[in-house]
């Protein structure tokens, strides 16, 4: 786990990690949220609607932004204060997502950093774009 202090978060600093989306993750997300929409739960329905399989919950994809902040950027001292996301392409079970964050803004007065987030699939296609606002719990 990274442990960036607020003063170490320079504009342009980047961190990234990759994660494969599995059907077990889909099942767990369903159990947690109760979202039984057939686009996520029913293969035949999804194909009938023009997709090539069950579509991964958008919020399962964007949940990786929590990991980006809490583990990588800034890591240990992260306090997530806001997240904005847009979904650009469907994600499917088996996709390997690369989550990349870059510090684009800092507000020293309230110790908040804005991190631009881009999530790409294994074909390097953007599937999700977002903005993460984090406070940093360090130096008292």
């Amino acid at each position: 786990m990274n442990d960036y202090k607020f003063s170490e978060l320079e504009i342009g600093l980047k961190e990234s990690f990759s994660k494969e989306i599995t059907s077990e993750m889909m099942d767990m997300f369903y159990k947690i949220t109760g979202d039984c929409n057939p686009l996520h739960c029913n293969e035949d329905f999804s194909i009938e609607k023009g997709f090539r399989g069950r579509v991964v919950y958008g919020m399962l994809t964007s949940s990786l932004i929590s990991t980006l902040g809490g583990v990588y950027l800034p890591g240990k001292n992260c306090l997530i204060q806001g997240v904005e996301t847009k979904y650009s392409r469907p994600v499917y079970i088996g996709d390997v997502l690369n989550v990349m964050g870059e510090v684009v803004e800092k507000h020293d007065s309230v110790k908040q950093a804005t991190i631009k987030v881009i999530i790409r699939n294994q074909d390097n296609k953007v599937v999700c774009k977002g903005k993460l606002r984090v406070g940093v719990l360090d130096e008292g």
Partner: protein
Amino acid sequence: MNREEVYAKLNEIFEDVFDDEDIVVSDNTTADDIEDWDSLEHINLVVEIENQFGIKFNMGEVNSFKNVGEMVDAILNKI
């Protein structure tokens, strides 16, 4: 930009941050007057003010504002 113009812009920021078009802020407005004005919304407010006015506060200033009037004084000193 004069005090009146700062207030016009600041009022729009308050409306956006608190998602309330009926907010009207004045010199004496405090966090007690706006129900949703908690510590996290205070951060959002400061960040929006810094971005919209193109200024930076320091931590001491942010923690010492007693009301909106003092916030406006600080903005006027920086623009």
